[in-house]
């Protein structure tokens, strides 16, 4: 059986890749995808903990389902707002969206 540490490391790597994407990507859509990556890293964590450490209960799995559902809602909304920005400014690069500052 694969030890739990492997899952935790995988999750941390995914989370870190997500962070990298959030900070380094310019396109808002890609940033949202990176956030998704972070959320899925969390899901992996939950599932690994639930299966390995606490197999007698379902809370971890349920949590993961909630995360997936809500992440979907968030992405839908995010795409709507990005569309709006694109109509207003003709770009979806977040570094060009800096009218509000200082």
């Amino acid at each position, binding site marked *: 059986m694969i030890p739990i540490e492997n899952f935790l490391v995988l999750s941390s790597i995914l*989370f870190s890749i997500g962070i990298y994407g959030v900070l380094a990507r310019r396109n808002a859509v890609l940033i949202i995808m990176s*956030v998704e990556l*972070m959320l899925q890293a969390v899901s992996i*964590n939950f599932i690994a903990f639930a299966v390995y450490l606490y197999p007698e209960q379902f809370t971890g799995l349920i949590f993961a389902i909630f995360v997936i559902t809500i992440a979907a809602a*968030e992405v839908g909304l*995010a795409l709507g707002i990005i569309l709006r920005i694109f109509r207003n400014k003709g770009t979806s690069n*977040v570094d060009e969206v800096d009218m509000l500052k200082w």
Partner: protein
Amino acid sequence: MDSVNRFGPELILLAMAAVIILADIGWALAGTGAERMRRPALGALALTGTAASIIWSALLIAFDEQGEAFSGMIRVDDFALFFNFLFAGTAAIVILASIDFLRRNRFVAEYYALILASTAGMMLLASTIDLIAIFVALELTGISLYILVAFMKDGRSSEAGLKYLLLGAISSAVALYGMAYLFGITGSTSLDEIGLVVSEANGETRSALVLAMVFLIAGFGFKMAIVPFQMWVPDVYEGAPTPVTAFLSVGSKAAGFAVVMRIFLTALGDGSISSDWATVFAILAAISMSLGNITALVQGNIKRMLGYSSIAQAGTFLIGLAVVAAADPQLLLGTSAVLFFLGTYAFTNLGAFIAVIAISSKIGSDQIADYAGVAKRSPLLALGLTICLLSLTGIPPTAGFIAKVYVFNAAVQADLVWLAIVGVLNSVVAAYYYLRVVLNMYTAEPASEESIQPGYYLGLAMVVAVVGLLVIGIFPSPLLEASEAAARVFG
């Protein structure tokens, strides 16, 4: 049935949100004949919803219907009820202040529905005692607010919406990561059980626990708007529609503090870990106050200035949390100081933003320089805004004074004298930029003599806020007792 009963205040808000959307469809079908009545009727429905929610909460107290609901997901206790009143009242004032603001907007129904939905989310945040429900409530609040911030659909509003959404999503992910670790360490999502396991934990899990704690601080620090998780605040406050900014600055912030108190006092309340987070909070409090106040000094946009000031205020609330972890009797003092401060701050900041809505919509600018001579054009509004700013500064006889004395006293009692000193010094700096606005209103020549007449709803909202903060300033006992009772939940 008990569960539904106890969930009533939230439920009725969500139900009313649905009713508003349906009613709007009804109006669309009815054609243009009834169009004139649409806006006031929808506003009235939304207000009815908040009123019903307040009444329901009051009835829960009257019939002593407190306890857990939905098999330990929600706990309706004095703490939750305190926030029920706070959030429903805030929502009511914000709705009142929005009626005039939305005069030319097509999507009135959606606006009210979203306000009600996010209010329900905030209430849920204060009453849940389970990580899953906390996450759901967090997202219910957040997603509604993302839409509200981007509601005007112009460049500024959309930009604010995008920033709020991006950073909000990142913070949720970070908080969630912390929750996952908490679950991994303790095997439970119930705050009580987590607290039990944490108090029995040996040193092995400490690193993981600290990691989870910091992730949670970061995630909810976004909502509370404390340094260094506060960077979104000025931009979003400036770009969002002003009533929504008011709602963000009061409701969302209070919700952040509510959930942080729930989690940290129940799940992470054990001495081994609480001294760690108390130190973190103390330092973040000092930095938030100083950075917020200093940056506010040179701001030209009043919404932005209030944004920075709200960061500083959040720092002041944090003092209360930092106090909590000191010895046992302080537990009550620190928590109730935060609650009392949140209560006074609700009136104060709502009042200030309502005045900004009224003045800015008339003069067409948010620049402090354009507030010149407002006192001549509308003495009442200028007086109201002045009282709110005095309260933010912490000058008697306003509520802000009592709140500051209370918090600083709590800090001194808990041997955090340095923090109290930082706080007092900061209030001197704050006096400078708040009074700058007052001076400008009273002492500069107005650009035009035309008087500014706020609408009736806006005027009513303003009166409620200003009278509230003066009454609390002079007769603070009822609110103090309420916050003490709410704080006793953790005692």
